[in-house]
């Protein structure tokens, strides 16, 4: 604890101010002068003693500051990956705390001693010295304020050290493993289903049996599936073609039947015309001839309609060409996929990677039945019995 010059002067001024007061006070103060003078000497001695203690304390503090500076410098020079152990940090903080406590105690003791000396000196003069309580309080307050200032300085130093250490800790997160860090990772809610981290396995390699099967190759082999698509499409196209062809065949049969009808109608027309001409008075002949004339064009109309439907069928058959075109497009895709697969195999295949173990759980996975810290400790304790 050090007293500033201003504080000493104020202290001294506080004592000098007694001369300017009332006569009673003056008389008392005159009486006190001697004692004051003596007290002043004592006070100066006290101050001198206090200063010496402060210097010692400063030296001690400076020593500890040097240690701290050395520690900080050593920390900066170290590799960034090097982490300060928790034990070192705790020990440093404890040292600082103990030092503060010791300083506090020493300061408090000194204060008490000084106060007692002051009071005893005053009493030893044998005069009723109504010690100026205000002066004493002022002395004590000054001493206490100085003490607080020193405490604040120590506290600020400690805070700076802790801030620095916390920065160092924050840059070494990788080396720190605790439950809070793991919990924080678990709270990130990573969609492991999309990433498939938990179930990610390497496809079965013919060269090595160390890999687990990623997917069922029989189910999602792309070229095989596309070939199956082409095959199924070809089969259905054939069925469609068969149906269209059967319709064409049916139309042809109908057209052939209509030809027969047309021939019959023509023959009947000739017969009725002959009968009608020879027997004009027979009304049935003329009526039948009229009816036949109305029907005789029907087969031709039906045949024309059938021909139009055949054209529609041919148009539908022409559109079936796109089945063949789409089949070739699918084959083009298969070729690209196969080529990509070969290129990927060339790029990614690495025999040296055989047998590399892969963790079943990584932070961020949604793996069920993950032990927390308490469960882990309990399991360890249980199995170590």
């Amino acid at each position: 604890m050090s007293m500033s010059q201003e504080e000493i002067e104020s202290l001294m001024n506080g004592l000098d101010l007694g001369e300017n007061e009332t006569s009673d006070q003056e008389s008392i103060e005159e009486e006190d002068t001697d004692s004051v003078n003596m007290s002043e000497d004592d006070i100066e001695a006290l101050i001198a003693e206090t200063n010496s203690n402060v210097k010692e304390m400063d030296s001690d503090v400076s020593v500890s500051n040097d240690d701290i500076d050395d520690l900080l410098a050593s920390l900066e020079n170290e590799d960034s990956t090097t982490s300060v152990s928790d034990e070192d940090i705790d020990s440093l903080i404890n040292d600082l705390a103990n030092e503060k406590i010791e300083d506090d105690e020493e300061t408090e003791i000194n204060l008490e001693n000084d106060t007692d000396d002051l009071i005893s000196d005053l009493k030893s003069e044998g005069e009723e010295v109504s010690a100026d309580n205000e002066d004493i309080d002022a002395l004590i307050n000054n001493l206490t304020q100085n003490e607080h200032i020193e405490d604040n300085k120590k506290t600020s130093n400690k805070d700076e050290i802790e801030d620095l250490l916390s920065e160092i800790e924050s840059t070494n997160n990788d080396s720190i493993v605790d439950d809070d860090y793991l919990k924080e990772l678990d709270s990130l809610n990573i969609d492991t289903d999309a990433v498939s981290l938990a179930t990610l396995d390497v496809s079965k390699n013919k060269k090595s049996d160390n890999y687990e099967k990623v997917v069922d190759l029989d189910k999602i082999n792309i070229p095989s599936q596309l070939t199956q698509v082409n095959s199924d499409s070809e089969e259905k196209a054939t069925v469609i073609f068969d149906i269209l062809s059967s319709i064409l065949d049916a139309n042809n049969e109908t057209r052939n039947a209509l030809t027969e009808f047309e021939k019959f109608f023509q023959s009947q027309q000739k017969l009725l015309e002959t009968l009608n001409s020879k027997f004009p008075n027979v009304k049935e002949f003329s009526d039948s001839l009229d009816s036949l004339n109305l029907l005789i064009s029907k087969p031709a109309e039906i045949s024309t309609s059938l021909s139009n439907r055949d054209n529609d069928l041919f148009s539908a058959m022409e559109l079936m060409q796109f089945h063949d075109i789409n089949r070739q497009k699918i084959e083009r895709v298969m070729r690209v996929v196969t080529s990509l697969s070969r290129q990927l195999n060339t790029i990614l295949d690495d025999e040296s990677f055989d047998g590399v173990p892969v963790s079943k759980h990584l932070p961020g996975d949604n793996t069920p039945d993950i032990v927390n810290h308490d469960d882990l400790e309990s399991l360890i304790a249980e199995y170590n019995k």
Partner: protein
Amino acid sequence: MRILIVDDSSTMRRIIGNVVMQLGIDKENFDEAEDGLKAWNLLSNKKYDVILTDWNMPNMNGLELVKKVRAEGNHKTTPIIMITTEGGKAEVITALKAGVNNYIVKPFNAQILKEKLDGVIK
């Protein structure tokens, strides 16, 4: 008149066959082959008046078949019509230089095939 239809797609063979039948040629008068190698075997054993062939086929593609037909065998002058999806100018030139008489790009209109077949037959 006998016609040889060469295409790896059964659908295309039927489509072309229907067009041929529309021209009045009976089904018994045209044969089908699913690749160039089988077509060459048929050409080696039978006489055909017209060859209708695709380009992209397994085993032996259409271009190789045309070059082989024009180089050897008894069909060096037989009219060949290539029916294919290869519609690039370079491919058409290549096929014509190989000995193809006419070229049809899929998808084709049946009327176009009829006209070109009529022209070849006549």
